[in-house]
């Protein structure tokens, strides 16, 4: 996959812990110490109750496939083959948009609710969290 054109995130002060975690091979979520809810994307307060008493923790990296589309017209930086744009439900609750890797990008291979495991791919200074079928 040609990577030089792929758009990459710019970490902000509120998201730095997440991107540092990805580089270290760890999926970091946040949870509210008041209402105990986990949430994503990162922010310094709980979107459920508004409390600023939140903490960062390492998630299990386990997820299930919630939904996806197969894009047959990849934008620059995403190669030339069709690829799945997926939403996964993390074991801890939050949903995350991602790609499914190490799997054929077909409806036959991508079954809704299939168990997934996080994997990280480095693009220069940024590592992106992708998901692969569990057990692969």
């Amino acid at each position, binding site marked *: 996959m040609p990577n030089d054109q792929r758009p990459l995130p710019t970490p902000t002060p509120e998201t730095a812990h997440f991107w540092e975690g990805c580089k270290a091979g760890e999926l970091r979520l946040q949870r509210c110490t008041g209402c105990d809810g986990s949430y994503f994307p990162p922010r310094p307060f709980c979107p459920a*109750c508004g409390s600023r008493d939140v903490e960062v923790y390492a998630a299990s990296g386990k997820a299930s496939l919630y939904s996806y589309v197969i894009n047959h017209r990849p934008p620059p930086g995403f190669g030339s083959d069709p690829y799945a744009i997926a939403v996964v439900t993390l074991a801890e609750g939050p949903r995350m948009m991602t790609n499914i890797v190490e799997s054929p990008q077909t409806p036959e291979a991508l079954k809704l609710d299939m168990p997934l495991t996080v994997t990280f791919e480095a693009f220069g200074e940024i590592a992106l969290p992708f998901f692969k079928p569990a057990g692969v």
Partner: protein
Amino acid sequence: MKPGSVAVVGAAETTRMGKIPELSVIGLHADAALNALADAGLKPCDIDGVATAGENPTAIAHYLGITPKWVDGTAVGGCSFMLHVRHAAAAIASGLCTTC
């Protein structure tokens, strides 16, 4: 709408003024909004309408944990926020969003 039937019930700025390197642009919006919510004694889930200039009001709403029924992204310069108040009062009066 009767005069006085819509009121500003909470108002705030960011927690600190000046250079705030630990917050991004969207983080500054959220910090001020959370302070205004605290001033009013409300939580994000009590809110169903968001207006802001510059940043996308739907992005701000989702960041705060709000599912908005009404948004206003009017950006016409420094007086945008005066128009937001007027638009918000009109939205409440016409039932596009609620106050309870």
